[in-house]
C-alpha cells in the first residue's frame, strides 16, 4: 500500500452494492483519472463496514473520514474537496442522532466506539478479491505456522484453551469438536463450513464471506490439518451470489498461491475446498440436515448420535463449523489462546457479531466482546430507539430466540446468560422492538416463519407449531380464552421437550418468552379484546373524534370501501361493520380527528 498516499474504501457488501456502490467506484476512478491522481490515490471496493443503515459508505484513509449515504454523483465533490483541497464534505458526514453534529472520524461514532473487531477485522478494510491484501494483513500466516511449526494436537490445544465456542447457535466448544473429529479414525474426513445463514435479517456470515473470504478458507485448512481431513466443503445458500462469487475468486487465488491444493507450502499437507449450494431451507442450518442436503438427499435432520464427528458427510467423520467460528481461528492461532480467552466472560470467550435490526437508529453489523450488555449494544452502539420511542423488547437468537425486556438490559451477553433469560445466542440476530409493537403479533410472526421452515419430519414441530400459530391467530382475532394461554404454554413446552432437532426444540421460545414477559398483553387480547399496541386489526376500531373533525371529506374520499359517511363541514362517521381497517383515512386526515381505539 506504500505507493499511494491515500485510499478510498468503498463498501461492496450486498446492501451497499445494491445502492450502486459499483457506480461510486467508477465515478471516483474517473474523477481521479481526470485529475491525474491515479498513482496517488487508490479506490478499493471492500466488504461490509457494518453500517448498512447509512450505506453506501465511503471511507477515506488514513484520516478515517467516514461518508455515509453516498451517491455516485458525490464522487466529484469527494475528489475535489476532500482529496485535492483537504476539506471534508460536511453534508456527507454521519450526524450524531442526538446532537445532530457531524462526526468525521468513524472511530468516534457510537457505532464503532465499543466494538472489538476480530471476526470482522478485514471487512471494510481490504479488497476481498485480492489475496495480496489479505496476506498483507497477516493472512495465511496462521496456516503456515500451524502446518510447519505445530502438530495437529498443538492446534487443537490452542483452540481448546482459547475457550472458543461455536458461533452457529448452540455454543459447543470448537476445540472439543475438532478433537473428537481428530480421534475418529477414517480413510477420509471432511471439514464443512456452514454458511447456510437462515435467520431472517441476519447477515453476519454473508458479510464475512463477502468482505474477507480468505479468513474462512485459511481456517478450514487449519481445521483440516488438525483433524486429518484433506477435503473441505462450504455449504452456502444460493441466494448469496456475491459471497459465492468472492469465494470462487478467493479459492482460485489461494490455489494459484499454493495455499490450497496439494502439498501446501511444501509441508506435504494437502487440502482443497469446494462449494455446495443450498436452496435456502432454514432447517439445513442444522448440521445433520445440512449434510443430507450436501449428499443430495432431502434436507432433513436425523437423530444424534451419531454426531457428524463420527459419521457425517458420506458416513465419514465430519467437522461442521459456522463461518464466524472459522473466521476467528487464524487470529487465535497467531495471537494465542491466552489473548483470546482474556476477552469475554467466564464461559463465553471472544467476540460475537450481531446483526442489529428493528426499531433502532443504527441498523447494521457489529462485533462486540462477549459480556457487553444489551443496553450498551442497543443504546450506545445501536444509537437507541428510533423516533425517540420507548424500548419494549429485544429479540435475540433469530426466529427461535426469545424476547427480552427492560429488566434484561443490563444482562452481559453470553451463551449461558441468554439461555437462562429465556432466549438464546443463536447465530446473532438482534431485533429491537418499541412501544408500537404488539408482542402477541411478534410471537405470531416468528411462529409463521418456523411453521414455514419446519421440515415436517417430527410431529411436534410439523403439527405443533402450526397449532401454536393457529391459536395465536385465534387470540389476535379476539376469540381467545384465558385457557388458551395455558394451552399455548403447554403446547410450547411439549414441542420443546419432544421435537427432533434444534429447530423444533427452540421454535416455541418466542411464544414462551412473550407469555413470560408480556402476560398483560396476552390478557388484554384475551379478556379485554384489545391490542394495547394497536396492531391487531380485529381488535381495533377506527373512530372519528367529533371535536377534531372539520368535515373536509378527505377521509370519506380516500376510503376504499365507502365506510365513512357525513356531509361537507359536518362531523363524519365510520361504519365499523364495513371498515376494513386499512388506515388510509387516518393517514389522510390533517386534523388528527381519526384515532384507533
Amino acid at each position, binding site marked *: 500500500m506504500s505507493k499511494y498516499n491515500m485510499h478510498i474504501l468503498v463498501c461492496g457488501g450486498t446492501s451497499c452494492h445494491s445502492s450502486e456502490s459499483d457506480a461510486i467506484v467508477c465515478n471516483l476512478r474517473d474523477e481521479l483519472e481526470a485529475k491525474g491522481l491515479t498513482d496517488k490515490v487508490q479506490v478499493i471496493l471492500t466488504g461490509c463496514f457494518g453500517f448498512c443503515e447509512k450505506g453506501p459508505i465511503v471511507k477515506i484513509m488514513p484520516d478515517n473520514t467516514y461518508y455515509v449515504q453516498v451517491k455516485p454523483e458525490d464522487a466529484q465533490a469527494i475528489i475535489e474537496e476532500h482529496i485535492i483541497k483537504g476539506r471534508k464534505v460536511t453534508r456527507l458526514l454521519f450526524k450524531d442522532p442526538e446532537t445532530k453534529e457531524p462526526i468525521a472520524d468513524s472511530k468516534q461514532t457510537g457505532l464503532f466506539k465499543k466494538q472489538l473487531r476480530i471476526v470482522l477485522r478485514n471487512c471494510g478494510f481490504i479488497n476481498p478479491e485480492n489475496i495480496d491484501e489479505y496476506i498483507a494483513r497477516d493472512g495465511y500466516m496462521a496456516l503456515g505456522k500451524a502446518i510447519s511449526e505445530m502438530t495437529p494436537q498443538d492446534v487443537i490445544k490452542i483452540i481448546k484453551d482459547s475457550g472458543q465456542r461455536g458461533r452457529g447457535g448452540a455454543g459447543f466448544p470448537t476445540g472439543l469438536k475438532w478433537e473428537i473429529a481428530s480421534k475418529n479414525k477414517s480413510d477420509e474426513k471432511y471439514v464443512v463450513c456452514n454458511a447456510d445463514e437462515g435467520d431472517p435479517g441476519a447477515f453476519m456470515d454473508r458479510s464475512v464471506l463477502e468482505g474477507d473470504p480468505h479468513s474462512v478458507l485459511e481456517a478450514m485448512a487449519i481445521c483440516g490439518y488438525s483433524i486429518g481431513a484433506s477435503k473441505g466443503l462450504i455449504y452456502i445458500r444460493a441466494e448469496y451470489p456475491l459471497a459465492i462469487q468472492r469465494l470462487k475468486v478467493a479459492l482460485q487465488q489461494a490455489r494459484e498461491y499454493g495455499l490450497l491444493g496439494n502439498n501446501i507450502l511444501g509441508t506435504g499437507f494437502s487440502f482443497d475446498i469446494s462449494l455446495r449450494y443450498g436452496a435456502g431451507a432454514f432447517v439445513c442450518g442444522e448440521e445433520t440436515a445440512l449434510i443430507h442436503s450436501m449428499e443430495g438427499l432431502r434436507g432433513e435432520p436425523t437423530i444424534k448420535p451419531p454426531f457428524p464427528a463420527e459419521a457425517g458427510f458420506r458416513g465419514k467423520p465430519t467437522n461442521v463449523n459456522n463461518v464466524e467460528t472459522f473466521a476467528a481461528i487464524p487470529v487465535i492461532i497467531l495471537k494465542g489462546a491466552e489473548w483470546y480467552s482474556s476477552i469475554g466472560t467466564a464461559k463465553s470467550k471472544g467476540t460475537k457479531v450481531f446483526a442489529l435490526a428493528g426499531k433502532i437508529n443504527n441498523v447494521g453489523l457489529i462485533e462486540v466482546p462477549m459480556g457487553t450488555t444489551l443496553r450498551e449494544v442497543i443504546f450506545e452502539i445501536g444509537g437507541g430507539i428510533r423516533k425517540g420511542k420507548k424500548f419494549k423488547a429485544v429479540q435475540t437468537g433469530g426466529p427461535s430466540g426469545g424476547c427480552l425486556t427492560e429488566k434484561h438490559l443490563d444482562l452481559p451477553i453470553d451463551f449461558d446468560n441468554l439461555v437462562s433469560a429465556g432466549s438464546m445466542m443463536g447465530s446473532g440476530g438482534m431485533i429491537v422492538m418499541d412501544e408500537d409493537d404488539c408482542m402477541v403479533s411478534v410471537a405470531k410472526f416468528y411462529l409463521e416463519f418456523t411453521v414455514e421452515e419446519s421440515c*415436517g419430519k417430527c410431529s*411436534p414441530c*410439523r403439527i405443533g407449531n402450526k397449532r401454536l400459530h393457529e391459536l395465536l391467530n385465534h387470540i389476535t382475532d379476539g376469540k381467545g380464552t384465558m385457557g388458551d394461554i395455558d394451552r399455548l404454554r403447554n403446547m410450547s413446552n411439549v414441542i420443546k421437550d419432544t421435537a427432533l432437532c434444534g429447530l423444533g426444540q427452540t421454535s416455541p421460545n418466542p411464544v414462551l418468552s412473550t407469555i413470560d414477559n408480556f402476560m398483560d398483553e396476552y390478557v388484554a387480547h384475551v379478556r379485554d379484546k384489545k391490542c394495547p399496541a394497536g396492531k391487531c386489526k380485529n381488535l381495533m376500531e377506527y373512530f372519528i373524534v367529533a371535536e377534531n373533525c372539520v368535515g373536509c371529506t378527505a377521509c370519506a374520499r380516500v376510503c376504499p370501501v365507502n365506510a365513512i359517511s357525513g356531509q361537507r363541514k359536518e362531523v363524519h362517521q365510520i361504519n365499523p361493520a364495513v371498515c376494513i381497517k386499512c388506515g388510509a383515512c387516518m393517514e389522510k386526515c390533517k386534523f388528527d380527528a381519526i384515532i384507533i381505539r
Partner: protein
Amino acid sequence: METIKLTIDNKEVEVEKGTTILKASRQIGIEIPTLCYLHLEDLNIENKPGGCRICVVEVQGRRNLAPACSTKCDQGMVVRTHTTRVLNARRTVMEFILSDHPKDCLVCSKSGNCELQDMAHRLGIREIPGSEYAAVSTYKPDTSPSIKRNLDKCIMCRRCEMMCNEVQTVGALSAVNRGFMAAVAPAFEQNLEHSTCTYCGQCVAVCPTGALTEVDNTPEVLRALADPTKTVVVQTAPAVRAALGELFGMEPGTLVTGKMVTALRALGFDYIFDTDFAADLTIMEEGTELLGRLTRHLNGDKTARLPILTSCCPGWVNFFEEYFPDLKDVPSTSKSPQQMFGAIAKTYFADKIKVDRKDLVVVSIMPCLAKKYECQRDEFSTDGNRDVDFSLSTRELAAFIKQANIDLNNLEEGEFDAPLGESTGAGVIFGTTGGVIEAACRTAYEIYTGKKLDRLDFTELRGLEGVRAATLDFNGLKLNIGIAHGLGNARKLLDDVRSGKSQFHAIEVMACPGGCIGGGGQPLHHGNSEIIKARAAAIYNEDRKKPLRKSHENPFIIKLYEEFLGKPNSEKAHHLLHTRYFDKKKKIIVKQN
C-alpha cells in the same frame, strides 16, 4: 458381548451394548407405545426415523425427552417411561397427530385395524382440543390400478418410504414439500401410475393408517356373481390359505384351504379352482425352458443366456422392466400362474364347459396388489377381454366373506373343483420365498437326470435370508441357484447379472420380503415377523401332506398337455402360456415454464 446396566421404571436391566431403550424395556415387560417405529426382526427391516415422538421417555440428566426407539442405552442410565411429564408430552403429541387427521373413522377402510386408532384408544384420548379451527393438511388423492393413496390420513411415519427406498429400492415414494404440508409422494407431483412404482404393495402392508390401501375390486366381482349370464370362476393363490384365517381370529399359520373353498362356494362362485394348478403348469413350462437354455448353454450356444430368472411375480416383472430393461431377455418368458390360469380357463376350460370367453369371468384371490395391475396388462387380454378379469387381495376376500354373513371358523372343509383345482405340493410352496425354485428343481432334476428324486425337501433353498445361494447336484452337474426376496435384494443379484459376474444358473425372485406370504394384499402383520414365519411353516406343512409333490406328476397337468397343449414349450404353449417384456423405464420430463 459387552453389556450395560440401566434402570427403567425402577427396574434394573442388563442389555447388550447398542440396545435401544425401547428394546431394553421390552426385555422387562415394559411396553412403551410406538407409532412410526416398525421392526420386522427376521427380515432385517427396521424403520426408526424418530419422527412421531410417541415413544418419548424421561432420561435422568437429559435436557429434553428421548425417543425410546432410537436412543441407545448408556451405562447407569435412569429411564422413566410414565412420569407426568412423559404422559403429558405423549398425550399432547398424540393430540397434535390426531388434530391433523380426518375424523372419518366410522367409514375408513382401516377402521378396527388402524394403528393410529388403537394408539388413540390406548392413550385414552377423548377429545382433540382446538380441532374446530385446526387446519388439516391435504394432498391430492391418487388411485392407480393397484393402490389408493389418501394422504390426508398420512401421519408421516415414513414406513412406506423406507420400504419403497431402502428395502425395495424402487424409489417411487419419498417425502415432498415441507412442514405442515409435507407428504410422502412420487417426485414432481406425479401420480403413482406415472412413477417407478412396481405395485409390490409393501407400502400398503406397513401403512399404520388408511392413507395407503388397495383398490377394492369387490363390487365388480359382486356384480359378476349377480349376473345370470356369467359363469364365474375363481382361483386362489397358495399364500392366501395360509393367512386368511388371521382375519377371522385364527392363529397365524392356520391353514384354511378347505374352509376357504366352502366360503367361496357359498359366495356363489361357479367353479372353485386353485392357482396351485397353474403353478404346476408354470413349473412344466419354466422348468423346460430352464433345461433347454441350460443344455444349449452347456453345448456352447452363446445365445442361450443364463441365469434364467423366474417370472411369476408381477412386482418383480415391473421392477426389471423399469430398472433393468436391458436384461429383459434374461427372465423366463413363462407367464405367472395367475395369467397361465386365466389363459387356460378362457380357452381350454371355456371350450370344455361350452361357454364363450366373454361370458366367463375369471376372478383371482391373491396375496398381492401387483396382480391387480398384472391382469390389466394389454398383452393379457384377447379382443379386450381379459384372461383374468378381477384380482382380489386376501384382505378383500375376508371382508367379502364377512359381508356375506359367513363365519369362516364354522365352515366344513370343501374340495376344489376339477379339472383346474388339482395341484401338487410343488404348486403350494410357490407362496413362499425359495418355493418356486424348489418346485422347479423337483421337476427339472427328474427330467434332466431321468432318476427319481429321493429327497424332496430342498431345505438348503429355504429360510428368510434376503439373498441365498445353494448348489444342487444334478447327477454331476453342479447347478448354482440364487434366491432373492425383496426387490432391493433382487437388485443386488441383477447388478451382478448385468456386469457379467453372476455365477448362477437360475435365480428365483419374489418382490415381497418373505415371498407371497408377506405380500401387499395379505392381512397386516403390524411389524410382527413371527406371523410371516408362521405362514411359511403352514405352506411347507401343506406341501408335506400332499400325496403328490412334484408338478409333472399332477394328473390333470398331464391330461392338459395330452388333450390340449401338446408338450411343454410347444407352439401352442408358447402362444398361451408365455409372454414378453417391455422397456418401461420412466423418462422424467420436467416441464419448462
